[in-house]
């Protein structure tokens, strides 16, 4: 990323923006790190979409308990005394879990669960952030103050703590898990959008729109938000990974609807109990989380580097 951007391409006119986008895509294509991020995130989304076709989606309910915590993949020797060999002709590439299910199958079934929650949380947080953050930044005054104080309250406790309380009170299910994480997530987006709108609304084109008689809602959501949403979208990409981390942390500590549910944190929760006898059971689900969240972080980092001219060198 050595090339520097031509002067004046920051302008918001149509041609300038298209040229900007073209240049950004050009930079993206030349950056191997971003390409890795794109590859991982696209692959994980594809895997999530195809997972019901790869693995029988009802297989998580079957519990062949005679195959609990066994390992028969000859590639890895754990060097632990008494690793139970699954025997038989079926190969379990990543071993089995404490219910006797193939860990690889469970991970494949778990990816869509985690990704779906992550996308739901991030998308809702963006919508809430754009609406309230935009309002706070554009209106200012008492509206701004009120919205900011509400975010203050939510930011005064660690998210995971609030989420724990919420899940316990609302009951353990995937929707409440989503709601709990969303409750801790939206204030950041409100603040980010607000600060974006604050600087964008002082630009001359807003004055021009106002002189032309455009209404507040149209100016705000039709123009200002459109021009200042990039950083929010970058943050959203970065946050897919963070939301997966938070969700899996919550299910890891046992806040799941069912211990059988194939979900990456939930699988790890089984694993921590057998950490020294069946280490694969915590290693592989956690590794999956790491790879997916790394993918989205790389992608978000790359997009930010490309769209933020200050970081371009």
């Amino acid at each position: 990323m050595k090339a520097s951007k031509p002067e004046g391409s920051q302008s918001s006119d149509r041609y300038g923006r298209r040229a900007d986008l073209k240049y950004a895509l050009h930079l993206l294509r030349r950056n191997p790190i971003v390409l890795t991020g794109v590859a991982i995130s696209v692959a994980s989304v594809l895997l999530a979409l195809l997972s019901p076709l790869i693995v029988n989606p009802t297989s998580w309910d079957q519990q062949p308990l005679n195959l609990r915590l066994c390992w028969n993949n000859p590639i890895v020797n754990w060097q632990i005394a008494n690793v139970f060999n699954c025997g038989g002709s079926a190969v379990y590439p990543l071993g089995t879990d404490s219910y006797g299910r193939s860990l690889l199958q469970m991970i494949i079934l778990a990816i869509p669960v985690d990704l779906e929650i992550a996308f739901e949380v991030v998308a809702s947080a963006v919508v809430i952030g754009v609406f309230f953050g935009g309002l706070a930044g554009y209106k200012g005054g008492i509206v701004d103050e009120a919205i900011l104080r509400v975010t203050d309250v939510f930011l005064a406790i660690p998210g995971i703590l609030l989420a724990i309380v919420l899940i316990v009170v609302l009951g353990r299910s995937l929707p409440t898990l989503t709601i709990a994480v969303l409750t801790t997530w939206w204030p950041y987006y409100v603040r980010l959008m607000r600060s974006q709108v604050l600087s964008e609304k002082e630009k001359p084109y807003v004055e021009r729109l106002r002189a032309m008689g455009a209404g507040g809602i149209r100016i705000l959501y039709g123009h200002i938000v459109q021009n200042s949403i990039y950083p929010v979208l970058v943050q959203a990409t970065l946050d897919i990974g963070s939301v997966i981390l938070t969700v899996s942390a919550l299910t890891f500590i046992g806040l799941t609807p069912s211990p059988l549910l194939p979900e990456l944190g939930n699988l790890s929760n089984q694993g921590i109990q057998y950490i020294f006898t069946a280490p694969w059971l915590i290693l592989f689900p956690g590794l999956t989380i790491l790879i997916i969240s790394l993918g989205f972080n790389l992608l978000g980092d790359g997009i930010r580097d490309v769209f933020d001219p200050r970081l371009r060198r």
Partner: protein
Amino acid sequence: MRLYEYVARRLLLMIFVLLALSVLIFYLTRGLLPPTTALAAYITPRMDDSAKLSVARALGVATTSCPSYSAFVSLQGGCVVPLWGQYVGWLENALAGNWGLTLLPGISGTDTTWHVFFSRFPYTAELAIAGAFLTIIIGIPLGIVSATHNNKLPDHISRMVSLGGYSIPQFWFGAVLQILFVLYIRVNGSGLLSANSTVATRCVICFSGVVPGEIARYSGIPLLDGILSLNFPYFWDSGVALILPALTLAITSIGAISRIVRSSMMEVLRQDYITLARSKGLKENVVIYRHALRNAILPAVTVSGLLVAYLLGGAVIVEIVFSWPGVGNASLAAANVLDINFLELYVLVTAVIIVVTNLAVDVIYAKLDPRIRY
């Protein structure tokens, strides 16, 4: 605005935030659940009805005029205190330090919520402080090296660490460390810890009130107590036991801090006064550590409030992975049995710490950077 005006305004705001938060938590734990559910955790089938009723009164959900427990259970008129009344009563008690009973067995055996919480809290504090320490001594140098060796090997390594820190599930990192050190890396035959009996008996100078053979507890923080009582085996053991949990807790914030220091350092290094310093013939180290770092560190100071919030929240997960005897570990147990007294105290104490830290950070920041106006 003068400094004291600013602080006064912030203090008022702080009280507002804490009050609003207490309303939120109170509503979540008691308003959303019927009063009988909130009560359920604290009564046992063995209690007779009058005992159950007095528990309900102590929790502030049953009125004093309520005739019997069965009348309360059937939610008879005049028996259940209205929610706002419950809140006022709860707040009065809370401010007086009366947080009711908890179900969790306390370390010292008594079971008021306050006592259990604060007998466990030092362990969490120790973990969080150690995590903050590691974050600073690893994260800041990583960021500096990354900026001064931009796009060279140290930069790539440091960015990798920071990206990894962002992406790694903490519970997994903790588990991997445990697997590595327990199953595959042998430090020596018996490990690093001293035998249990040595720890207890070997206080070199046993201060008054410390019985030889017992571990002294002045602050409750093991590392500190080990030094204060000059019980070096205890100090050593506490330190060894702290390394892996603290590293696990710090891994994400190390990434965050190093990234912030890197970008602010790079911006500072491009400024004119750095060019001037270099052209004066100053050594590169002096330029970086005396001139650039002072300005580059400021953005890192502003996020230290967030860092504290992050470390206190992350402690829940780390404590569970490492079976650490702190409040985070207990909060999960409390959540599982719906011990709302404990959860409320935990949330509010954490919030007070975070809000106060944020205020302190803002004041310190304004002192450090004269360009900042209140």
